[in-house]
């Protein structure tokens, strides 16, 4: 039983994920499934930066927005093929990521958070005010749907296959990154930057790289979003959006890959089902974050790991007490 579980858990999850458009035909549900994928990618991208590397970002929606605008502007104004936009979005976002990552040469901890917050605010204002390029608050309409051969991905159901594929790709990238030399370097920087440097890790290089990878993935999520909604406006990239991505990461578990995905899915779906509560749902949202961080700081990811260890028979009877105070003020 345990061997069976260990062998087939990944395959079963993949099958389930790809079967969503078969299980339901409701376009609203499929749209939510797409949004859940997009936010899962965003949460994972933030987790690489914050969860793995310990660099705080409160302006992640800026990269998301840069990606979305890059890809839709290329398609709408330059008439470029959609796939070119999907390639350009992460590249442009990564360039901004490097630019923003460079201040990490001098800044640590929360001061970096301040810079990212300011960056998010600046980008939002640029989206709103650069009317000749972005069409301002009215937004860009007519963003085309991508096509594969003669199949146009213009329904939520068909688009979902693109979303889930990119999400799976992101998960693979995150795992490969985490369990590599680079990933261990990032974790070392998170735990203690000075010690990491003493061990010969070029912390500047790795921090800028974390920014670059994180921004690229967020930019890709932006392109995915723009071509799903077929419309972009600055309102989708306000600071509150950065905060929701951050909340998804916290609820999912800081540094946990499955947690990121589950956290994003939960916080995308739950508010939708709480719609009848009106504004009260956001109160619940805030309360959930506070309670989660006080009573279960490991997040949903912590629960998943425990269940997974139990099912696969790798549970450690006595939990190892680690708990290193990280990112000292």
């Amino acid at each position, binding site marked *: 039983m345990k061997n069976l579980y260990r062998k087939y858990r990944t395959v079963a999850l993949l099958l389930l994920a790809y079967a969503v458009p078969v299980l339901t035909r409701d376009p609203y549900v499929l749209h939510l499934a797409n949004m859940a994928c997009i936010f899962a990618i965003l949460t994972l991208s933030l987790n690489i930066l*914050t969860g793995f590397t310990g660099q*705080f970002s*409160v302006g992640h929606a800026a990269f998301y927005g840069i990606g979305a605008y890059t890809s839709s502007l290329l398609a709408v104004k330059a008439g470029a093929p959609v796939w070119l936009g999907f390639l350009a979005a992460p590249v442009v976002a990564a360039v901004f990521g490097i630019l923003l990552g460079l*201040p990490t040469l*001098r*800044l*640590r*901890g*929360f*001061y970096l*958070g*301040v*810079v990212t*917050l*300011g*960056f998010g*605010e*600046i980008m939002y*204002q*640029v989206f*709103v*005010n650069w009317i000749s390029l972005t069409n301002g608050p009215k937004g860009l309409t007519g963003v085309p749907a991508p096509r594969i051969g003669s199949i146009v991905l213009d329904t939520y159901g068909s688009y979902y296959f693109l979303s889930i594929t990119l999400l799976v790709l992101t998960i693979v990238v995150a795992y490969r990154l985490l369990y590599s030399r680079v990933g261990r370097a990032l974790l070392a920087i998170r735990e203690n930057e000075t010690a990491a440097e003493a061990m010969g890790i070029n912390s500047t290089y790795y921090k800028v790289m974390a920014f670059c990878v994180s921004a690229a993935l967020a930019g890709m999520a932006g392109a995915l979003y723009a071509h799903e909604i077929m419309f972009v406006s600055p309102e989708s990239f306000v*600071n509150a959006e950065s*905060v929701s991505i*951050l*909340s998804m990461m*916290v609820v999912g578990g*800081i540094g946990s890959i499955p947690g990121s995905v589950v956290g994003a899915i939960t916080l995308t779906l739950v508010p939708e089902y709480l719609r009848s509560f*009106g*504004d*009260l749902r*956001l*109160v619940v*949202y*805030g*309360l*959930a*974050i*506070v309670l*989660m*961080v*006080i009573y279960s*700081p490991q997040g949903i990811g912590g629960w998943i790991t425990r269940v997974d260890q139990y099912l696969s028979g790798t549970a450690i009877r006595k939990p190892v007490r680690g708990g290193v*105070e*990280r*990112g*000292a*003020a």
Partner: protein
Amino acid sequence: MFVQQVIQGLAIGSVYGLMALGYALMWQAWAVLDFARGEAAMIGAFSILVFHSFFKIPFVAAFPLAIATSAILGYVIQWLAYRPLIGGIPINRLIATLGMGILLRNLARVIYGADPYPFPTVFGDKPVSIGNVLVVPQNVWITAIGFALVVLLRLFLTRTYTGKAMRAAAQDRETAALMGIRVKQSMALTFVLATCLGAIAGLLVAPVYFVRADMGLSIGLRGFASAVLGGLDSVTGAMIGGLLLGVTENLAAGYISSGYQAAIAFSIMILILIFRPQGIMGRRL
């Protein structure tokens, strides 16, 4: 034009300064950048709205009532969401403040709705011309109150036993506890003080910007930028940061474009952070 923009900038800047003081106090005592700080302004503004506009209590009496309400709410908030995380991982504390901010903002929206409430001006908004410069009395009052509060706060922190205890607890929690200071109480008091400063900032801007459930977002963000600008470990610095941000923002709006007002302010903040991360008045990091 220039002088007028500067005067207007000083007024709004002293409000930012009051917010920045809250951030600086929170940073010192709790070692957290408090993302729910802006909500203190919202609480203050709604308290004065309820007492003055709804219950028709005269402003002189409504003012202390509003401050007292904010202080009580502040105590409850820190007890609920901040105190359980003392000594935990810093990022968790920070995220708790983010969650608290969302909670308070939307609670206000549920109670009062999303529409802005106008608030009658107390200090007069008819411009008076001095020489060839038009001065709005309200702006002068706001600036004066801001400056008075900074002086009072400095005196409180340096001259009274409670103030000294608060600073000691902020500097070294354990040693302060060994000296017989009740650290948790002292931290709670700092939180209440920061909330009161925020509340005053909120009710000062209420006549200018209206009272809205989400007013804490923009004022909080600017207060935050001011605190960083001035240096998070200095009371005077926080005020100077606020004034600087207020004046810059107004000059940028007047001479460049009002749309990019905030973008320019934040660009300056980022540049200062890169080249002088400890802020204008702060000690070296």
